[in-house]
């Protein structure tokens, strides 16, 4: 139970970062921390008591319990999606720096109303 509470704590740390950061890059890093906390939760969900790694042939033939492999496949795909999102948002961030001359989001307010 403590493991899941720590994952949720990581999620809250990332959320605090997104809401209160003033630097563009810090917002991106906080978003990444939030994503990774969800991946941790997803990978930990598949654990079964006394389970071994889900590879055939089984590591030890007298232990027939393996952990759930489906959340691990989901996390792999989600990591690649997070990579694409990060690449996209960082490219936009460095182009924004070139156009506005600053990383501070309080200065980047062309669109209002």
């Amino acid at each position, binding site marked *: 139970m403590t493991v899941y509470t720590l994952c949720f704590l990581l999620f809250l740390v990332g959320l605090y970062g997104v809401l209160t950061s003033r630097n563009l890059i810090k917002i991106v890093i906080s978003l990444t921390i939030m994503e990774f906390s969800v991946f941790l939760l997803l990978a930990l969900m598949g654990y079964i008591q006394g389970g071994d790694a889900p*590879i055939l*042939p089984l590591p030890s033939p007298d232990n027939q319990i393996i952990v759930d492999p489906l959340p691990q496949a989901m996390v*792999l795909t989600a*990591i*690649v999606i997070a990579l694409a999102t990060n690449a996209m948002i*960082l*490219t936009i961030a*460095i182009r924004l720096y*070139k156009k506005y001359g600053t990383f501070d989001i309080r200065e980047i307010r062309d669109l209002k109303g």
Partner: protein
Amino acid sequence: MQGLSIIVKKVAQIMSALIFIYGAYIITHGHLTPGGGFAGGALVAGAFMLLILSFGARFLALKREKEGSSFIESLAVLLVLCLATGGLFVGSLTFFHNYLPLGQAGHLVSAGLIPLYNIFIGIEVAAALLSIFLVLIIYKEEISL
């Protein structure tokens, strides 16, 4: 952009060869050990990035490399789609069906189409990561010229 000193260049040459071979091992043994296309592709991209960072490159050479890597990425995805659509015409006539002969479990040449998918996805992921890296480096060179 500038290269680094000669010690870094020599060590990078040796290390990038080892990283490339290790990445290719992870890609091709994707149906026997954990890993597969994504993880192996990221390693192979890392080998190329190490060489570019330690040797430096002129601006035009970087642009040509980016064009080539973009082209290989699109080609690899098209090959994956072609292999998957081939399942519509051969065998049990469903999309993404595994229509090559399955061998024995645990051998390197087995499990039908899955090693081929791993190889093409590995090439695609490596080319995509290299393209992202080159785009960022080219932009930095452009704005500091």
